[in-house]
């Protein structure tokens, strides 16, 4: 039996290849990123002085949109082709599947964020007063927080009625401390205040919930 | 007695009674279903 990491890598590579093959997906992602930033610019006046204070919140709400869009289709392909049953009877550890899905989502959402960020910077004339490299850490920790729980809850929502709304409904309340952390850390870096505590919060949140997801995913997969 | 005080205490008991009312409603519906079951199997 191949090593668990091998399975994770193989599954991840397959997912990425399938996504990349369809140029539609990439074009829609580009257009989606632009749309979100434009809508936000109309809703929250970029020229106002307060924009630097609220930019952290704006950006992360936009990223949250992107994350939910990505997460909702996490298992769509698997359901269509009844792949999940095959996974259940195979000796492959469930965690490999989970990690592959979570990493795939992470990459997908990170790409969307990378497309949206320059647009936000341009439209809102953003400039980081604090150390800008920390923003990258916050982005990664924050995105992982959303994606790891989101992938888990997407699996839990599979056989529920109103599946599409069940995912955000389950994800948002649990994510509130992480969202507070992401937004506050981003705002702190943009305004030059200290973000260390918030980054520590995000890191510990990620560790705790990644562990919880890995420990419980097998039960959830088999319960379906 | 202060209006807000009354409102708070009243709200508390209204919420509790509303919940108990739903329990009673579900219980009577269950009783009806039990009657149905008993009728269909003599």
């Amino acid at each position, binding site marked *: 039996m191949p090593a668990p990491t091998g399975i994770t890598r193989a599954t991840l590579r397959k997912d990425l290849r399938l996504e990349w093959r369809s140029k539609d997906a990439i074009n829609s992602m580009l257009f989606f990123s632009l749309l979100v930033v434009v809508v936000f610019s109309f809703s929250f006046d970029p020229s106002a002085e307060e924009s630097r204070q609220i930019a952290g919140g704006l950006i992360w709400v936009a990223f949250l949109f992107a994350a939910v869009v990505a997460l909702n289709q996490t298992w769509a392909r698997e359901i269509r082709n009844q792949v999940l049953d095959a996974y259940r009877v195979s000796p492959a550890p469930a965690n490999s599947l989970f990690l592959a899905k979570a990493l795939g989502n992470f990459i997908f959402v990170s790409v969307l964020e990378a497309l949206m960020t320059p647009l936000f910077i341009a439209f809102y004339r953003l400039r980081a007063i604090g150390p800008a490299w920390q923003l990258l850490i916050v982005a990664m920790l924050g995105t992982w927080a959303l994606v790891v729980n989101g992938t888990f809850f997407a699996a839990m929502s599979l056989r529920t009625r109103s599946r599409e709304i069940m995912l955000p409904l389950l994800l948002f309340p649990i994510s509130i*401390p992480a969202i507070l952390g992401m937004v506050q850390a981003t705002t702190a870096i943009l305004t030059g205040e200290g973000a260390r505590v*918030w980054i520590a919060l995000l890191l510990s949140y990620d560790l705790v919930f990644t562990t919880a997801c890995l420990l419980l995913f097998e039960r959830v997969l088999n319960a379906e | 007695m*202060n209006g*807000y005080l009354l409102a708070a*205490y009243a709200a508390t008991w209204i919420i*509790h009674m509303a919940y*108990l009312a739903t*329990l009673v409603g579900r219980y009577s519906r*269950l009783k009806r*279903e039990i009657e149905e079951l008993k009728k269909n199997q003599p």
Partner: protein
Amino acid sequence: MNRAFPVLGVLTAILLSYALYMALVVAPTEQTMGDVQRIFYYHVPSAWTAFILFTINLVASLVYLARRQPAADIVALVSAEVGVVFCTIVLVTGPIWARPVWGIWWTWDMRLTSTLVLWLIYVSYLVLRRFSASGETPVLAAALAIFGALCVPFVYFSIWFFRTQHPQPVMGGGGSIDPRMLHVLLINWLAFSCFAFLVCWSRYRLEKLQREVEQAQALASLAPRSPR
């Protein structure tokens, strides 16, 4: 067991009435807030009861995941439901208290905000239980309960730290409490705990009965009908 229930019901009703009398008449009037402060005697015990119920939910969920006992699953459901009822009361009485004291309905105060997030988490738990197909619901719900419980320290810490950076008026005031007020508070807490216990017990019996009926209905639809 059935005979104990009405007796306990009457005792609880007496205790609740006594606690109410204590709260409205016996407890001393607070000097700055006046009579409105007496909302405290309903607001705080409801919060404590909700927390205890959510803790029971966590324990029951862990027991269910470990042992797969249906009774544990029912306890988890019941404690979450009744916990949400008490939590709703905290969120309703809080603003009613804040309005005359601070002039605003909602302050994003540390405790009230944390309670709101807790309420959201357990409502989402109840929604999952309602919407998921019945075969796997107990396991999924138990997993969500664990996630919710893990989240609680993060909720409290993040909101606390946020508040230290952006201070707001703290509801309920800080500092020590008059021992006579503490006494009334504890009596109300005892009364509401007994009440919560009876409500949970009723809900437990209702759920057990419901599951038995559903099982019987499932069997009846499978079995051939006896000729009339």
